[in-house]
């Protein structure tokens, strides 16, 4: 571990430090590396349980998808908080997808996701926005890769809630 260094706070602060300050921190605590530090992640918005039960995007008990054996990487994700920093480093060497995952966790500690609730940018001939897709990935990570909760949190056009359904049903009813 990183000794007495409060690594949870450090990871949150680390992205906001200047390059010089980051270097100083690395010199002061050689064993600290932001990739392997403790990062506590929380869902970006409250109300997941209510959204599962009511309204647009609610859970359908008749619809499910699963793997017959769980993904080892997903298990590693669940174990991540309880591993030592050195073990996380070893794990990332053993399981290649865990290294970008570690980068994703560091980004999740400081990335603002409010832009995902703003109207989507207009599609034109410009390249696909990597920043937006990375924010989507961070949001999904913060929901513990629960895709349903992630979509429910996005809401709006992602769950069909943006249509005027009352007016639609009124029209259908009048026919």
């Amino acid at each position, binding site marked *: 571990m990183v000794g007495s260094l409060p690594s949870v706070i450090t990871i949150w602060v680390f992205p906001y430090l200047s390059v010089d300050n980051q270097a100083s921190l690395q010199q002061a605590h050689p064993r600290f590396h932001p990739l392997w530090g403790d990062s506590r992640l929380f869902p970006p918005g409250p109300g997941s349980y209510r959204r599962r039960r009511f309204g647009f995007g609610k859970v359908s008990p008749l619809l499910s998808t699963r*793997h017959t054996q769980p993904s080892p990487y997903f298990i590693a994700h669940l174990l991540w908080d309880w591993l030592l920093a050195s073990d996380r480093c070893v794990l990332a060497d053993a399981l290649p997808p865990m290294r970008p995952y570690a980068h994703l966790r560091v980004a999740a500690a400081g990335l603002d996701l409010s832009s995902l609730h703003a109207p989507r940018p207009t599609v034109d001939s410009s390249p696909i926005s990597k920043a937006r897709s*990375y924010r989507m990935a961070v949001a999904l990570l913060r929901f513990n*890769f629960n895709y349903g909760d992630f979509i429910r949190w996005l809401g709006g056009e992602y769950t069909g809630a943006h249509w005027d359904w009352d007016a639609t049903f009124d029209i259908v009813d009048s026919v």
Partner: protein
Amino acid sequence: MDFDRAVRIATEGVPLAGRFECQFESVRKRERHDNGSLASDVFAAVRQKFTKEGKLSYHILFPRCLWAFLPGLFLALITWGRPGDEGRMCVDPSTILDGGAPNDVILDDGAANAQLPDTGRPEKQGLPDENPPVYYGTALTRFLIWIYNLRIDNPVDGICLLADNSPQPSVASFTTLTWRYCVQQFFRNFWSFRVA
């Protein structure tokens, strides 16, 4: 009209029911396959198509590494056909991969369409929530009647209609028809009317 069902569709999405289950190894195999059937000369076209499809809210793009973490993920292969001049991208949930290496004994059960009940088989019928019958035989006829009635109700208004506006069952079943001159002419007339 079944309003309860309509509300369920609006709030829960479709299909209303289904059990999709596969091995994680199938997902891994498909990720390693890396859309190997795509020729390198269409990569730019596929990328351009994905950029264009960004206007659809259900196209959410993620970094590739996330495939390893999503519980219950099914990966669909990408294929590219050339029915017309511009080409057509297809996210293909039907194709099943071969065994691959000689010692590869993992059977690919990661094709989502393979797990849909077949409405055409009597023993699989009675599952309309999982795979609703669409009555292919009359889909195009019903669609044309709807357009005819639309014209009666709106005799002077322009109607903008493209081939993609026709219902999916008719597109799926009658793709050949819609590309034939006689039927293409039918669709094009509506378009010409609007332009005029």
